């Protein structure tokens, strides 16, 4: 492997939306002639969680802070993986099974930083971004999901 030219500046694109996620559009936003690899991630609503049958999920956010945190994560990825081009979109509102709640696209000249940045972004998003989900079950019950099992 030889040296690549210095990466172009890229301002990460992050968004919170209520309409369905368009992954192709997200990928287009990170594409560039300098790019050789685009790693992307879709989080989708699973029919089963903790053994319970899920009918849908309501996503809620502290929107201005969620936007800030997503942007901070994207910028941190850009610092850790120089030249990576990151876009993140999270959907809010009510989603049904198999619908995408989050999409991440990370583009880089090389595949390793693209894939590593994608992992960093989704792991950070899960622990930092103020978004919550209320799962609805087939028995009519619902609960706010706490991934860490913290007592509420």
């Amino acid at each position: 492997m030889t040296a690549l030219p210095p990466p172009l500046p890229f301002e990460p694109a992050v968004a919170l939306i209520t309409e369905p996620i368009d992954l192709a559009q997200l990928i287009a936003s990170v594409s560039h002639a300098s790019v050789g690899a685009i790693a992307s991630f879709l989080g989708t609503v699973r029919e089963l969680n903790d053994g319970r049958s899920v009918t849908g999920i309501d996503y809620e956010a502290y929107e201005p802070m969620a936007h800030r945190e997503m942007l901070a994560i994207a910028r941190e990825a850009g610092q850790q993986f120089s030249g990576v081009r990151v876009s993140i979109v999270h959907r809010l509102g009510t989603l049904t099974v198999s619908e995408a709640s989050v999409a991440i696209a990370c583009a880089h000249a090389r595949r390793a930083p693209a894939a590593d940045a994608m992992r960093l972004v989704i792991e950070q998003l899960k622990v930092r971004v103020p978004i919550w989900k209320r799962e609805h079950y087939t028995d009519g019950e619902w609960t706010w999901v706490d991934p860490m099992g913290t007592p509420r």
Partner: protein
Amino acid sequence: MSLPVLLFASYADAFGARTVQVPVVAPCTVADVVMAMRLLPGGDRLPDKPLVALNQAYAKMTAAVNTGDEIALIPPVAGG
């Protein structure tokens, strides 16, 4: 004197509101705000160490709260 605190998800359910007026006098600390909230109806449902955001950034319990600051209680996040 009181300060408005933003609530979300399970905390909004606990307090039955999206914003509560918390009886504290600024300047104070984040810990003071949380302690005062425990005495409000629903405050017993807060965990031992709730996360707090000050002006849309995570804040320590010792952080100073001034009049006009945006304070929010952050339930366990579950994005993605």
